[in-house]
Every structure is written in C-alpha cells, then in structure tokens.
C-alpha cells in the first residue's frame, strides 16, 4: 500500500452539513481559537511583570470595544468547547453515541454555551460597576 497519496480526513466538499457535523467543526474551530487565546493570555500575564503601565495598557486594550468583542468570542469559544468537550469525553466512555442522544446533547451544548456567555458578560459588567 502506497503511503504517499493516502486520503486524509476530512472531505468537506462531499459531506452534507448536518447538526452533528456542524457542531463537530465548531469544536475544531473553537479549539484552534482557544489555542490563539492561550497566547493572548500569556501576553496579558506577562504585561503584569513589566509593571504598572504595561498592565494598565493591557487592561485598557481588553476593555476597549474591540477588546470586549474579542473576549466575547473567546468566552463563547471556551464554553462551547468545554460543553462539547464533555460530550466528547462521554462518547469516549461509550455513552451517548445513538443518533437521538447526539442531537439532544448537541442542542444542550449550544444552549449552554450561549447562556454561559451571557451570564459571564453580565457578571463582568456588574463587577466593573456598570461602565
């Protein structure tokens, strides 16, 4: 068997979008997004070691409208990936791989991530004192 031109996954062109496949690709997208977020996290915590001004600058950037938009994206990505990650772990343990359960657990993850994103932002605005 030739190992050079083996087909590699996935073949999105020939795959009809379904709730299961869409949720799956979002898991991948959010995973890569979070990996980028880890780099941003590193910059944030490193800024604190550079002193008062650097950290104030980082906090101001994150608090700007653009920074908030980015954080909104990361927050949703985290809650989606976390919820769907638990779904993945359940499958690994052998639970929930039937079609009906897949659909239900998928929608639960979507609702969970939207809800938790809202809760987080409301809590953050409250913590910031309504600014």
């Amino acid at each position, binding site marked *: 068997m030739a190992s050079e031109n083996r087909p590699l996954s996935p073949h999105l062109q020939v795959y009809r979008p379904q709730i299961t496949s869409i949720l799956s690709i979002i898991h*991948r997208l959010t995973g890569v997004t979070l*990996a980028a977020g880890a780099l941003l996290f*590193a910059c944030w*915590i490193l800024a604190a070691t550079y002193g008062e001004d650097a950290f104030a600058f980082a906090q101001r950037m994150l608090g700007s409208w653009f920074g908030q938009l980015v954080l909104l994206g990361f*927050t949703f990505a985290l809650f989606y990936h976390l919820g769907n*990650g638990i779904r993945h772990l359940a499958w690994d343990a052998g639970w929930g791989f039937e079609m009906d359960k897949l659909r239900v657990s998928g929608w639960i993850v979507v609702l969970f991530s939207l809800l938790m994103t809202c809760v987080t932002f409301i809590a953050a605005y409250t*913590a910031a004192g309504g600014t």
Partner: protein
Amino acid sequence: MQHRSALDKVRHLGSTHSGAEHWWSERLTAIALVPLSLWFVYSAIGLTGADLAEFKAWIGLYGNPVLLILFIFCMFHHGHLGVQVVIEDYVHNEQVKFLAIISTKFVAVLFGTASAFAVLQLTFRI
C-alpha cells in the same frame, strides 16, 4: 465480514507513531481543564478593570498561584496536542507538516514557561 483492517496493512501508516499516549494526554488535560477553566473565567470576571496592585493581590491569594500554573500547563499542553491533530489532518506535505508541528510545540513550551514564570514572579516579588 471483517470490520477491522489487517494489522500488516495499517502498520507504519499512523501520522504520529505515538497515538495512544497523545490521545490519553489530550483527554486527561481536557478533564483537568473543566474545573480549571471555569475557575479562571470566574476569577477573570473579578479582575475586570483591575490595576496591577489588585491583580497582584489576587495572585497572592492562597491557592491561586498553584491553580494558575496548573491552568497554564493544562491549557498549553492540551492546546498544542489539539493543534497538532489539526495540522496532521490538513497539511499533507511531509516537510511542512513536520515544521508546523515542531513550531507548535516550541511556541507552546515558550509561552507556557513564560506564563508560569510570570506567575512566580508576580507571587514572590513585592
């Protein structure tokens, strides 16, 4: 009907040659990241708009430096293992794939170590 490929057909066709360990580490760090990332989001909410003094006061709280370093380790470890899988799926050129995976590992170790060291620095330096 046989549902599994014969072993001699699949030998040496794996993309990482160390799949089981990779898979297991990805799951273990995922499990650890459930409480760790929830804790981090909860903490980050409290740090909205904080200045450096408030940030250091939070880092200095009992338990926080350890949780932060665990979060950093699991996040970068899990993240780089995950990105490696994505690269293996989409990058078909062997040389480019090799370079991309190595770069991912270097970036993860660099940023992870720098972050963990920053936590120690912020904890112990007044």
